[in-house]
């Protein structure tokens, strides 16, 4: 009975050259595929984690902040309306007093949302309330300054206009922090 000669890989002369090339090409292709599969899985896992983080951040952290900011922006539009109103100053002061209550509620909601962001595991950093206090104090003081003003043109109008600027500044400051967080999550 004829016994087959064992195949010795790499033994030049026993296996035709082109067979050796084909064999090593197949091995290289297999290793390449394995590396690619592993890399794809790592990337897919990273993408899934980032997508989950983004989703949780958007729904649990960003959404309450945006809702509170929108409420404050709505109040800002009403304050702007008071600023351009042709009514008597005494009447505009009453309007502003009524708006102040909603403004205070809006600030309260925003403070709560930013405090939750500080404590949330879906947002980085504990700097969410940074700057908030200054905007709040300035805004509340400007309302008081406008309400207690004596001269309509010299005191009331400038205080209300400054209040509008302060509320815009708050919106920009907080919205920027909330948007920057998305970049931070994507780059993690």
């Amino acid at each position, binding site marked *: 009975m004829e016994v087959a000669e064992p195949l010795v890989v790499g033994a030049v002369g026993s296996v035709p050259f082109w067979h050796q090339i084909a064999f090593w090409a197949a091995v290289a292709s297999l290793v390449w595929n394995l590396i690619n599969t592993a890399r794809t899985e790592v990337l897919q896992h990273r993408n899934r984690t980032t997508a989950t983080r983004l989703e949780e951040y958007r729904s649990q952290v960003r959404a309450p902040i945006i809702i509170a900011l929108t409420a404050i922006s709505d109040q800002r539009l009403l304050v702007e309306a008071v600023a351009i109103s042709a009514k008597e100053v005494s009447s505009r002061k009453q309007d502003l007093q009524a708006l102040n209550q909603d403004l*205070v509620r809006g600030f309260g909601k925003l403070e709560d949302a930013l405090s939750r962001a500080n*404590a949330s595991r879906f947002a980085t950093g*504990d700097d969410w309330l940074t700057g908030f206090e200054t905007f709040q*104090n300035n805004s509340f*003081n400007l309302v008081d300054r406008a309400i207690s003003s004596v001269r309509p043109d010299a005191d009331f109008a400038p205080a209300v206009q400054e209040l509008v600027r302060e509320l815009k500044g708050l919106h920009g400051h907080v919205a920027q922090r909330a948007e920057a967080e998305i970049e931070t999550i994507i780059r993690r």
Partner: protein
Amino acid sequence: MMPQIDLATFTEGKVRNLTGQERGLSARASYGLQTLDDEAEPVTVIIPPELDAISTSFFQGMFADSLRKLGSRDRFLNHYRFSAGPHLLTQINRGIEAVETRRQSAFSH
């Protein structure tokens, strides 16, 4: 008679919003809270109805030391009894939480 603080004497009907830590510290000094913290009787804090806001910073200036001295939120609220509408009590609550959070973060660092 239960000792009491009436914030109307501080606002004099001129402001609707109490803000700022410095202002809170000034109120603390003018009402002698350092002494009232040690009173055996509970202290009533009357908040005038015309007030719309007590900011966290004002609350911290006025009451943070009392809260620390009394040790807990429950003991603080048992000692200082706030007479105000729900809207302002929410703000008082927010102030208490801010003091407690600051204390916790100070311990964690």
